[in-house]
């Protein structure tokens, strides 16, 4: 009670939208998203509610007729009853679409934009590369690796012909 009094000082609207009114002084307001809803899914074939909630008079009379013997229903009436309860049939719901083309197109587009961003970065953001990338330095590096005999069994030194000082054919 004290809590609601305190809330009423803040705003009169707060009480009507607050869902926690203790002590049995009121009923919680139920939001639409908290109620059972209808959705078309293959793994949930019988949803919690019918698709059409507000029936027209024709539909209401049809529902009354449904309470009797179903042999008296015509094909169209049966289909109308189906469409009251369900939005899409299984065939309609499982049908594929062409959405994947848009998805792939979007993916490729954004990958392209990322590529442009990377190119711009290389030109305008990054500083110069260290001296260890120069050709002369790399040649000396490679010579040192061959002198040390790096990876002699199946790697780089195995491909070097030490007698003739050239790569093996």
């Amino acid at each position, binding site marked *: 009670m004290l809590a609601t009094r305190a809330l009423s000082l803040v705003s009169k609207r707060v009480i009507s939208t607050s869902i926690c009114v203790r002590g049995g002084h009121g009923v919680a307001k139920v939001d639409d998203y908290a109620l059972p809803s209808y959705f078309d899914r293959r793994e949930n074939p019988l949803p919690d509610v019918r698709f059409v909630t507000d029936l027209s008079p024709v539909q209401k009379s049809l529902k009354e007729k449904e309470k009797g013997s179903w042999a008296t229903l015509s*094909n169209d009436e049966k289909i109308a009853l189906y469409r009251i309860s369900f939005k899409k049939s299984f065939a309609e719901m499982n049908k594929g679409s062409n959405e994947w083309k848009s998805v792939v197109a979007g993916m490729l587009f954004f990958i392209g934009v990322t590529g442009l961003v990377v190119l711009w970065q290389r030109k305008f953001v990054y500083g110069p590369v260290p001296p260890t990338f120069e050709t002369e330095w790399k040649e000396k590096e490679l010579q*040192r690796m061959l*002198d*040390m*005999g790096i990876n002699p*069994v*199946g790697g780089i030194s*195995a491909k070097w012909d*030490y007698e003739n000082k050239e790569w093996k054919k």
Partner: protein
Amino acid sequence: MSYSKMSLAKPVMRGLLGKRLRFHLPIAFALSLMAAAAFKFGVTEPRKRAYADFYKNYDATKEFNNMREAGIFESVRPTGK
């Protein structure tokens, strides 16, 4: 209009996992064994042979002297001083 003959045949309700396993498990085993055999005879055996051949006539002293002459060591200088 009577619809007594229009219903579909009852679909298979049981034994679905067993049927799938009976089909897929032998194939899975066979493929795995083939993959293992291919790796063994394509990768590991040649590699073992390559190492054995390399070390069969390996002269460590000669290699050391070659490296020394190339000047990569700090503890020994090349013989030419």
